């Protein structure tokens, strides 16, 4: 067992972990952050994406011991005082999710993408999400959600009016 200290979603915890423990398992099983999920074992699907030290990483492809001393943000740390992160809001608004299993990783990667490039083109959005698989949405509305969060779509109020 190795002692690690991780600041996850604002709270600092110290725990003993086996060195082989993957960060995603530490988050889920020891910190109870089950919003972050495992979708594959080859790092292709990106469902486990969190922010580690401020950048998106695949938490199933990082050992918990490697995150010792780091700041981790999961999807559960995005909303503040009941207010959703704009990307979370955009995912709902644009119907960018169906079963929701890839969604938390997809949101975390989308946020990273926009942090890096606040005005991405459609191509840049698509290639920025190439590390995240979704089986439900065909990506169409995920791309729209990122565009919406980037302020590239008509405001949702306008959409609402045009549809009602």
């Amino acid at each position, binding site marked *: 067992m*190795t002692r690690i200290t991780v600041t996850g979603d604002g709270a600092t915890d110290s725990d003993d972990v*086996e*060195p*082989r*423990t*993957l960060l995603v*398992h530490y988050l889920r099983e020891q910190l109870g952050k089950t919003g972050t999920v495992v979708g594959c*074992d*080859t*790092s*292709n699907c*990106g469902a486990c*994406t969190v922010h*580690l030290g401020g*950048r*998106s*990483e*695949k938490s*199933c*492809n*990082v*050992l918990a*011991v*490697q995150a*010792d001393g780091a700041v981790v943000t999961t999807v559960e740390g995005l909303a503040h005082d009941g207010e959703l992160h704009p990307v979370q809001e955009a995912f709902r608004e644009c119907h960018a999710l169906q079963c929701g299993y890839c969604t938390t990783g997809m949101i975390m*990667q989308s946020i*990273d*993408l926009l942090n*890096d490039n606040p005005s991405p083109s459609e191509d840049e959005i698509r*290639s*920025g999400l*190439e*590390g*995240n*698989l979704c089986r439900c949405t065909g990506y169409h509305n995920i791309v729209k959600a990122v565009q919406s969060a980037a302020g590239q779509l008509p405001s949702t109020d306008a959409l609402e009016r045009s549809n009602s």
Partner: protein
Amino acid sequence: MIPAQFDYVAPTSVEEALSVLAQHGDEAKVIAGGQSLLPVLRMRLNAPEIVVDLGRIDALRGVRDDGDAIVIGAMTTHNDVLHDPLVREHAFVVTKAVAQLADPQVRHRGTFGGAVSHADPAGDLGAPSLALDAEFVIAGRSGTRTVAADDFFVDLFATAIEEGEILTEVRIPKRSGWGAHYEKFVRVAHQWPIVAVAAAVHVEGGTIREARVGLTNMGSTPLRARSVESALVGQPATDEAVRAAAATAAEGTNPPSDLNGDADYRRHLVTVLTRRAVLAAAGA
């Protein structure tokens, strides 16, 4: 899946790392970014007794100017390489290749040194390193040695790094004013390249003065397309001339056959991709 049990140590200096490696011999496995190693451990295809994490050795991170070469620390992440101005100016084909390597999350953790040490023949950094005559600085208990790119990639997943050694940095001779392109062919974006071509060319007055061409996934190691390079020298940067030079790109290669294509298809593909890479690099 969960890896088998292992011990873990995270040295903070190269010396400390080497001493741990010396102690454990072939029971130790070095982890850099771990983006290729962790899936292997999770599938239990490898079960080391101890994992030596280089992630806490700050000296191995970063890109620096060293006169006639730039030096990429082995633990510099792909993302840092991608955005590094020195790399962009002097080794632009590396920038081009790393931009297409894996996906953003992997680029945030994966490292330059880790990727080249893993020596996957489909890895994106071998061909540009080879094309640019990169040198690999390897530290061992008896000191450091420098290995030329031609000698670094030994075989499938095998490099000149011996047991007990670690790669500390990669030196790339400066080539300013060169055009570069990395032409990568995949079926889906998150795939390893079926074939890729790294091309760097120095064009003056419409004539190719010098050319460097590296091939990805055309054999058990990255390969240098020397016949293409020499055929390009002195040629105009036109479709016709480059097409003729690129036609020899498959010479001396031994590409694999797999679900994405057989060897014959790859031998054809590499000629097309070489032409496109060189033309794009030449700005034609």
